[in-house]
């Protein structure tokens, strides 16, 4: 049985070596000399017969000593006093060994220094195995054994754990590797996830992130996204339960976009980028598996939309004529953030002839006015994802983001008389009491511009929202922490 707790080291001088390391072989005479007159212990990682000159050598066969004492290089030489490490040196460096051992006569015929080799306990090929051996006890999730004759993918479909696409089996090794993507403790509660209002730990998020196909470095974004949606402001419960075709739309800002390889360019809202797709998918899998939110149960959406599998993308901040989205929520540009918006599927606005911002705003307004229904106003919000070719028109004319939004909102403002029930022969609409007012499509803050998309194409994409405000969902932006 491998030691899952840190084994104590003996007092005196302790060396950790492996036979497969030329530097360890080189220093064997030094080790023999130390064994003559000191309280001295040698741990060998690979060959129990090495070093032959040290009869009392100990085979660190399961690498428990090396793992728990963070040995990264062999040879490592330690001084241990009263059970506590007080000094450490790695590789062979005569002066350092002399200082640590308080002996100046060591290795006189050896070169002045030789770098060491990698410890077996940090061997990438063994990393997952060692994580499970020594770190598995931190995982509290129920273990489920899938029999040898079961097809693992089919077994996970059968248990209802997937969104209809295959998932990666969440083995202990994969989940432990996923947890290396965050400094947060596995038992730390991230969110209370609707509809079951279940407390969700970092570990459960990691399990679902593995299934979604995330890499460990995506985990902080997944954790932040869950914090952003599982609260009364965003109202994930309502977003899930509504008959409308909406789900969380996640926009990522800050340097982390580039660090984890997110797409903000060509096909930004489409397929092909692992980070974009798996982060959004992990959030949805947590809602499904931890929250218990499944289509046909509490998810009552009439049609849904493909974005309910995953809808996550990065803003192209570098080429944007405007300040990034996160600044509208009080965060400085350059902050790693996730913004959550309850949105439906994206729709294109094509305008290939506009040559100034005013013309473009008119096209945007005409399209946005029809969002949900031309006669339904103020109740719904929208994200407008402006592509680089359109954005250039605003940049060249010096239009700020606020000015652009203001103009679009002006252009969507219509007389209440045209919007009330029955107007235009359409029953849908506002109560008659609005007939004499001038009414904008969007409430203040209800229209957000995001810069993203490929470098060719005179298009913008509009993403319509769900019921805005305290009866529905408000946009939430959270800072990503490691």
């Amino acid at each position, binding site marked *: 049985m491998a030691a899952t707790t840190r084994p104590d080291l003996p007092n005196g001088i302790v060396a950790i070596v492996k036979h497969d390391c030329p530097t360890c072989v080189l220093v064997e005479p030094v080790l023999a000399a130390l064994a003559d007159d000191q309280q001295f212990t040698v741990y060998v990682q690979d060959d129990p017969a090495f070093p032959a000159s040290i009869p009392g050598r100990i085979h660190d066969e399961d690498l428990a000593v090396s793992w728990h004492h963070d040995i990264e290089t062999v040879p490592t030489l330690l001084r241990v006093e009263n059970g506590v490490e007080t000094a450490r040196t790695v590789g062979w460096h005569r002066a350092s060994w002399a200082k640590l051992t308080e002996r100046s006569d060591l290795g006189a015929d050896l070169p002045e220094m030789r770098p060491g080799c990698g410890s077996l306990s940090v061997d990438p090929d063994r990393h997952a195995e060692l994580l499970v051996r020594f770190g598995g006890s931190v995982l509290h*999730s129920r273990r489920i054994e*899938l029999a040898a004759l079961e097809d693992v993918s089919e077994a996970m479909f059968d248990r209802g754990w997937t969104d209809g696409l295959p998932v990666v089996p969440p*083995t202990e090794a994969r989940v432990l590797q996923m947890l290396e993507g965050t400094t947060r403790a596995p038992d730390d509660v991230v969110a209370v996830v609707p509809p079951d209002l*279940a407390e969700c730990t970092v570990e459960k998020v990691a399990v679902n992130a593995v299934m979604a196909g995330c890499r460990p470095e995506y985990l902080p974004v997944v954790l932040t996204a869950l914090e952003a949606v599982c609260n009364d402001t965003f109202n994930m419960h309502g977003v899930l339960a509504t008959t409308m075709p909406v789900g969380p739309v996640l926009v990522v800002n800050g340097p982390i976009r580039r660090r984890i390889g997110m797409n903000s360019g060509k096909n930004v809202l489409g397929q092909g980028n692992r980070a974009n797709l798996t982060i959004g998918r992990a959030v949805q899998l947590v809602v499904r598996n931890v929250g218990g939110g499944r289509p046909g149960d509490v998810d009552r959406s009439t049609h849904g939309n493909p974005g309910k599998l995953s809808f996550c993308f990065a803003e192209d901040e570098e080429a944007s004529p405007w300040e990034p989205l996160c600044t509208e929520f009080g965060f400085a540009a350059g902050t790693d953030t996730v913004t959550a918006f309850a949105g439906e599927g994206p729709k294109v606005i094509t305008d290939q002839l506009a040559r100034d911002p005013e013309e473009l705003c008119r096209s945007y307004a005409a399209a946005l006015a029809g969002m949900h229904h031309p006669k339904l106003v103020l109740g719904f919000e929208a994200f407008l994802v402006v592509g680089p070719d359109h954005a250039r028109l605003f940049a060249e004319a010096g239009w700020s983001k606020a000015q652009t939004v203001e103009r679009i909102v002006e252009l969507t403002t219509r007389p209440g008389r045209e919007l009330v029930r029955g107007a235009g022969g359409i029953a849908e609409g506002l109560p008659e009491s609005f007939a004499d007012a001038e009414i904008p499509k969007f409430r203040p803050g209800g229209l957000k511009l995001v810069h993203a998309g490929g470098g060719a194409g005179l298009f913008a994409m509009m993403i319509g929202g769900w019921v805005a405000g305290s*009866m529905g969902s408000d946009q939430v932006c959270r800072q990503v922490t490691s």
Partner: protein
Amino acid sequence: MSVTTVLDPTNEARPAEWSRRERPASIEGRVIGLLDISKPRGNIFLDRLQTRLEERGATVERYAKPTFTKPAPVDLRHEISTKCDLVIEALAD
């Protein structure tokens, strides 16, 4: 092929099976809570239900969620569970 051990991705709160509570033999003299989730026109359905239940000797208590888009507040759930023998939650759409 060998056994693959995976970690349960769910909240692990769901028991293997639920057992139904026994149906009451009669609703006479029972307090029945009617919870309106606050969808439009749900009250019309509940008004009718209340009339029918009262004809059969039940006492009806009416409740409503503040909004259908969010879970019922804890206090409301607690009040219903302490005051009522039975509860009917109505969804209209």
